[in-house]
């Protein structure tokens, strides 16, 4: 039986994609493949794979190529469907590709000028992605704000590297670092360290330079994923590359540690106030970047690199899946954690926490000599402690799950982390100055106890009624002026 058709809908051409979208995806995945091959090859030799006047392809380069091409490749494939039908989609993919090229050049740069230009390029392209929607005033304001920050960080980097090159008498990264290893530390090196840390702090959106990141949500979701998994890592990579500089200027590591710790704690607390999911993710990135720089400040640059790769997986996933974050809660179902005072679960948690921390230290070889690695073990212990309390307190679960759930899930995860960490360290370990943990000092004890106290305070909820603090933190986490679309009429999708 044939039906007579009445007023059909116009047929869609399925939002045809320009060829560039495919070309750039293929290029990015080719980089991924090439990096995989290089990785296999590089583990068999101690020397860098390639060292020229412009490029340096060593373990660090290859690991980061893998990471950046993986994130970019995923974002490419995701965007081919997600961004279908949006205006100027070709330009969007061109920017993704250009960003990937700049990031790849940055991690492979052996020339200080190339490194600076790649850094500047990443910033300008990211600013372009933040302001992708041209007719939307708030997006343009956010773009302008971010661009000012990125220009500042590029200027700081340029002056830091210029000074370093001038001191060392070379524009070549390897030669400068060789020079550094063979000479007494000049006083001006402290200035280099400060300039590099300042540039990294902006890129990593450390407090108080975090506002550009919290104003960047006018970028399309996949671009944000790339920003949080790729762009913000620039700071950590920069510091790792120049680790000997910080090794030579002892107090600069403590500065990094304190800066990182402040952002780690503040980022997490700021996150806990946010009803907006993307802003939560932004605050979380501030905290995680703070933690990453803390690891660097403790002398574990290879742990910092591991962290930024794993955090990239985590944060990119959460950005791409941001549409899943709407649930129907009732106020009562909004559960309260079992009280920290419940003795049995606290004891069990502490016991498992110590085991977990010990496992971590043994497997990663950190802190065994009583150095700053112990502090990293503390964070593992807190994670296991908290999970144990949660699972033991969850009476809806079968007894077997409550008793064995944490050891059976978290200990294998710690093992997996240790594998990744040891792998990364194995590949980049030859770099000068990337692993030199300091002996524990009072600063480390203070920071350790601040985190433990913070954990306890938040579990007990003591902070929740401090009105002035709440207002201060809310205002600290607001986006920059005129980057929020407070009048619907000013929203414009194109």
């Amino acid at each position, binding site marked *: 039986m044939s039906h007579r058709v009445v007023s059909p809908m116009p*047929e869609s051409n399925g939002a045809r994609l320009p060829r560039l979208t495919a070309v750039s995806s293929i290029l990015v995945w080719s980089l991924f493949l090439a990096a995989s091959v290089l990785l296999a090859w590089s583990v068999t030799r101690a020397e860098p794979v390639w060292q020229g006047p412009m490029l340096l392809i060593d373990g660090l380069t290859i690991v980061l190529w893998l990471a950046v091409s993986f994130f970019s490749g995923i974002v490419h494939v995701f965007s081919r469907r997600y961004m279908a039908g949006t205006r100027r989609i070709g330009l969007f993919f061109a920017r993704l590709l250009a960003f990937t090229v700049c990031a790849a050049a940055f991690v492979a740069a052996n020339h200080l000028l190339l490194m600076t230009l790649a850094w500047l390029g990443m910033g300008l392209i990211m600013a372009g992605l933040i302001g992708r929607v041209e007719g939307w005033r708030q997006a343009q304001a956010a773009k302008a704000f971010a661009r000012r920050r990125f220009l500042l960080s590029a200027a700081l980097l340029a002056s830091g590297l210029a000074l370093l090159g001038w001191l060392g008498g070379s524009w070549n990264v390897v030669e400068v670092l060789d020079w550094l290893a063979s000479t007494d530390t000049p006083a001006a090196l402290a200035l280099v360290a400060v300039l590099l840390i300042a540039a990294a702090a902006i890129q990593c959106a450390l407090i108080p330079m975090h506002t550009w990141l919290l104003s960047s949500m006018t970028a399309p979701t996949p671009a944000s994923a790339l920003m949080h998994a790729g762009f913000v890592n620039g700071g950590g990579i920069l510091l790792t590359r120049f680790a000997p500089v910080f090794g030579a200027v002892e107090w600069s590591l403590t500065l990094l540690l304190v800066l990182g710790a402040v952002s780690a704690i503040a980022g997490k607390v700021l996150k806990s106030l946010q009803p*907006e999911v993307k802003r939560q993710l932004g605050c979380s990135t501030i905290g995680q970047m703070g933690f990453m720089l803390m690891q660097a400040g403790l002398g574990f640059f290879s742990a910092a690199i591991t962290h930024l790769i794993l955090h990239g997986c985590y944060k990119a996933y959460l950005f791409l899946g941001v549409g899943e974050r709407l649930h*129907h809660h009732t106020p009562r179902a909004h559960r309260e954690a079992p009280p920290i005072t419940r003795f049995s679960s606290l004891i069990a948690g502490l016991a498992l926490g110590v085991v977990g921390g010990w496992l971590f230290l043994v497997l990663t070889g950190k802190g065994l000599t009583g150095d700053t690695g112990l502090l990293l073990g503390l964070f593992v212990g807190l*994670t296991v402690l908290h999970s144990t309390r949660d699972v033991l307190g969850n009476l809806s*679960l079968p007894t077997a799950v409550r008793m064995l759930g944490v050891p059976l899930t978290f200990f294998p995860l710690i093992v997996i982390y240790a594998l990744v960490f040891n792998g990364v360290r194995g590949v980049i370990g030859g770099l000068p100055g990337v692993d030199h943990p300091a002996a524990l000092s009072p600063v480390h004890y203070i920071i350790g106890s601040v985190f433990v106290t913070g954990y306890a305070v938040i579990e007990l909820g003591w902070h929740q009624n401090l009105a002035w603090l709440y207002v201060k933190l809310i205002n600290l986490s607001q986006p920059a002026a005129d980057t929020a679309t407070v009048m619907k009429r000013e929203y414009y999708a194109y």
Partner: protein
Amino acid sequence: MPISATAEAPASIEATSLDERVERAAECVAPAWPLHSFVTANPLAGFEAWHFEDAVREAGSLFAASGYPGPDVLRAAWQRGDIDDKLLRCVLDQAGYAKSPKALLGWLKRKASSAPPASRVNGAEKRVNERLVKWLTVFLDEGQAEWPMPGREKGFYAAWRSLAIYDRQIPGREHLAGMPLSASAAIEWLIGDQTDLAQYELLRDQFAALPGWVGRIKQRIESDDAWQRDAPISLIDYAAVRLTLLYVMDEPLQARHDSSNDESEADRVAAGFERAWEQTYRDRLVSAIRASSEESEANNDDSPDAQWVFCIDTRSEVIRRHLEATGRHETFGFAGFFGLPMQYELDSADAAEPACPPILNPAHHIRDQVADGCETVGGRARQWHRLFRSGWRLVNDLKHNVGAAFHFVESSGPLYGIAMAARTLVPRKLRALRRRFGAHFPEPNHYCAPDLDGATACEDESLPVGLTHQQKVQYAAGALSLMGWDQFAPVVVFVGHGSESENNPFASSLHCGACAGHRGGPNARVLAAICNEREVRTDLKAQGFAIPEQTVFLAGEHNTTTDEIELFTKGTDLENTDRLQGIRQDLVTAQHGAASERGRALGTLGSSQAVRETGRRAGDWSEPRPEWGLAGNAAFVIGPRWLTRQLNLSGRCFLHSYDWQKDPDGSLLETICNGPMVVTQWINNHYYFATVDNAVFGSGSKVTQNPVGNIGVVQGNGGDLMTGLPLQSVAAGDDDAFHQPLRLTVVIHSPLGRVLEVFDKNQQLAQLLSNEWISVVALDPQEELTPRDVRQHLQDAALAVG
């Protein structure tokens, strides 16, 4: 001729109480439901007492919104022939435009580009919004933030006041300490000296300045849910905070008086095109129905093997047509909540969800219980759901924890990386894997039966749990009579519907609107269970429904993304029978047909690919358009199936079964018009406005959306709450409109007199019709289906009386 009930409102505002004035001033903003229960309501619901064109003009100036399709959309429709050229010229001529359509379109285009709507934003309102939005966002949060705003239990004004004194972003905050403690005292103190009319206008501007959040507040007040009880907010609270901000920031406390809206000329031209477009569609639909129904009626006497009841949803039209084509299947259209005003508590859910349209209040609470014979699979599935939920809860807990989050990210990072790669690179395979896994741990639909008698214990005691015998009979008889049922086939299937999509904040907008934005499976299960009860059958027989002994009622669910129909047969007599096998085969055939037809609108070609491709869309987290939902909706046909059986209505029509001969007093028609027809008008207006101005009446592009507070989305870095459908639900691309914004045409197969009577009796319906929110055509069966314009006849009758 406009009926301007509200246009005269300012006059009647004199000598009202403050409460009333605030209430009236807020009427311009429509309530906004939370996204987990999306309701496609009319964003101009507060203007329905106005003529459509006046409402659009008024709302246009209040919200700086456009109310008609843009020149590009109109031009495309005209060039495609969807606007009949002769008719268009005639309509334009009558409106006094002598120029050609082409010239007028060019003029519209120039006009649109010369005055961007964003230029109409008021500075003072924006400055207040900048300071207010962050407080509304944290106050109205429903469990997204770990650290909620302190003091919410005091109410919005009081909570805000005790925090705002610390807020350095408010200039003049030192004056806050002197403000009255209660919200109404504050309003009285600030503007008590103004006339009632001036107060009303000032207040109205305050509500219109932030329509998203105000809409949310209105719906929260109406629902009076647990959140509202824990953290109460009133319209007075909102108004008091706003006026206080105006005061301390030294902004004028008076209504803005915009220069008169010079868009009206362009609006009149666009309205002409729009009317011609609607008229074209209406003429073609009506003449097609008339032409095809004659032959159809003649061969309508075979007795079917199975009867199917689908929701009136436009997507049902497609699958019904393809199902009918496979064999002796008779299909009916009925509101997808199957007439059951209830809230349903699924076995896997934390809370009961409303399962009836928002125009009704749930009267019963019905819960799942594990069906007889499903104890093993049910127990397994329950345990799995519990484990899964606990796991997610732990993950969330760890993510937020100051001490635990850092290492958690490191140890779970590899898993997130793998999951991200799998979901992005092989979404279809992942879905297949999930389905295979799901066979062992099924959804409650497959192992539960509704606890009709309320035998299980229930914590929530606000509603009676279960149904009495009388209620069961009443709901069954109500449903069967409304559909005009003649004879019963051996198998009768009630089919609810729901959509399947991933990573989609608007998932509930694709579910069943009649079930308050939820899946319709549970409603189908309840009605089938009622009709299978022996005692109910006996009483139904007494009321004249001759249901044969061997007839079995089944429930099913139509997956509107893939067009797959699942049948819930566990524990019924039909399980594992040949008859069921045959039915399942027909369903697969129908799925292929429907999926390939609907796939064409999504750009998929070829039927072999279509089912594959819809599966991909259903499981792909990067897919912003899993399906088109109700886009394209344009008409509502009330009548027997033979009227439209020969037609391919392209998924643009709501279909409700109705037999005028079984409705001598018109009461069934009245029920349909007051219920389903009003709901279809809401849906139609929602799609219309979200299409013509997606920034003000929709929620913009998904690409830059940011979920907020478990209730909705904002754009980019936050701001006003975005309400309504996203751009991707109504457009194929930024420059490629998809939904055709036409006001609803209602076609009723019934004698004209009876239709007139219904509209005469129900003033609200008459208002919708005479104010041109809808058009109604009666096809009078006693006059060879001569089409009658009911609006015209109603006006003539009114004149005659007058």
